[in-house]
């Protein structure tokens, strides 16, 4: 099992550690709800050093990334971040990821830890361009500072005017003298930053951010990372996305796919699927009866299976028992009453939108 550079810090904080994507990661420090509320109301800091980073360098770096990535890389400007996916020729998802454009001949891909090896093998297989693809995951550590007070806290540690760093852009900057990459991105639905650097730098920055934040910040574990991303309907690979689910079925086409731009692997399947309309899609569900909805529970209409829950929780922010679920059409329409099987009992659910909580990004 791999450990991140912050492992000792987590243990010192008495975190409950779990295996996640081959890494020993903090699940909970104090409680999921408490950490969740810190991120929604003040700020939280996550160790996300397990994430994978690939460098693509060379003359045709952009062309290569565009070929394996669903979003439009050709439209990117230097310092921009784009969300999208790598697809199999079937249209199923290899992984969802962020692409950072440093300049025309240098791109960075940030991928899920649990998929990093698979992604690297897949990308390497498709690499027939004049560029070099390297896996930098072991060299780069990362923390995510998220929450409405994120900017105020990070500003204490840098002369860079963070108000000029807009949503989904990044820059190299000095954080307490350490030159690191900072992007205005995240996975919580709140404003915030993701900070990439070498092990020693990130180890110091973690400590410095916690000190700078004082009572307004808490270390946040993977437990609340999942409840936070869930409430704003951000997908998790393995739940809302998989090799058997296309971005259209996941309802993520508008933010991750540009069919009108250049070619990419899997595009023809998406074009066809868009024309014919998908047979199923991810929707929101609300439980009418009592209980909690969980990943994998089956959904029925009049005794026939019509779908499955992809992620479910009692929302820490709203207290509602809700879920995201992959549902066959036409049972995906809002207000449709369906049944969920929870431990051999059928309980009532109703289809709703999947905005369980409203995002508050700094989009300008």
């Amino acid at each position, binding site marked *: 099992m791999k450990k991140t550079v912050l492992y000792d810090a987590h243990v010192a904080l008495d975190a409950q550690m779990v295996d996640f994507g081959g890494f020993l990661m903090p*699940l*909970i420090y104090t*409680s*999921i*709800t408490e950490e969740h509320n810190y991120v929604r109301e003040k700020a939280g800091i996550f160790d996300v050093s397990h994430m994978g980073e690939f460098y693509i360098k060379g003359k045709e770096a952009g062309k290569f990334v565009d070929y394996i990535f669903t979003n439009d890389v050709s439209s990117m400007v230097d310092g921009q971040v784009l969300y999208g996916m790598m697809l199999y020729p079937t249209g199923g998802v290899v992984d969802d990821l962020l692409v950072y454009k440093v300049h025309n001949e240098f791109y960075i891909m940030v991928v899920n830890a649990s998929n990093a090896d698979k992604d690297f093998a897949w990308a390497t297989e498709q690499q027939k361009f004049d560029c070099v693809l390297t896996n930098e995951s072991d060299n780069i550590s990362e923390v995510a500072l998220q929450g409405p007070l994120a900017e105020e806290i990070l500003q204490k540690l840098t002369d860079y005017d963070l108000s000029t760093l807009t949503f989904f852009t990044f820059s190299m900057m000095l954080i307490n003298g350490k030159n690191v990459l900072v992007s205005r991105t995240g996975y919580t639905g709140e404003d915030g930053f993701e900070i990439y650097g070498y092990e020693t730098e990130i180890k110091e920055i973690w400590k410095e951010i916690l000190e700078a934040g004082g009572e307004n910040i808490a270390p946040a574990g993977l*437990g609340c990372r999942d*409840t936070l991303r869930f409430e704003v309907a951000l997908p998790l690979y393995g739940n809302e996305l998989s090799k058997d689910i296309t971005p259209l079925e996941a309802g993520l086409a508008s933010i991750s796919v540009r069919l009108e731009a250049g070619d990419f692997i899997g595009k023809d399947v998406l074009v066809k699927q868009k024309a014919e309309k998908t047979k199923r899609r991810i929707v929101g569900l609300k439980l009418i009866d*009592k*209980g*909690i909805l*969980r990943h994998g529970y089956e959904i029925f209409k009049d005794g026939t299976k019509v779908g499955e829950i992809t992620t479910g*929780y*009692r929302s*820490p922010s709203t207290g509602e028992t809700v879920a995201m679920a992959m549902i066959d059409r036409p049972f995906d329409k809002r207000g449709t009453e369906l049944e969920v099987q*929870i*431990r051999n009992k059928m309980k009532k659910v109703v289809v709703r939108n999947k905005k369980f909580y409203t995002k508050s990004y700094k989009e300008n």
Partner: protein
Amino acid sequence: MSKIVEGLFYTNTHEWVKVEDGFAFIGITDYAQESLGEIVFIELPEEDDSLEKGEELGAIESVKAASDILSPITGTVVEINESLEDEPELLNTDAFTNWIVKVELSDESELEKLLNAEQYKEICE
């Protein structure tokens, strides 16, 4: 270090049984509530339901996951702790005073096969 109460019977799946006035009260241990984390929902059986030793008696949902409660004994449910339906978090507050079901035992000799506090303590270490 989680709390263990002397004089109760325990299972290796972290339930406890307390016998009082000929009835058995079943709950989950402090160790169980601690590892579950914040409990947000409990699914209880109904009165008159029969319970089989080792079978599912109900379920507890924490923020992060669902977990079965296994019945340590065979018997019939005579009462459920209804306050847990509205306030399942009471199990986090005190797992030993908040029993889950009150049961009429079918076979008292089953109790002898359960763990005592000392034996249970070893499991939690």
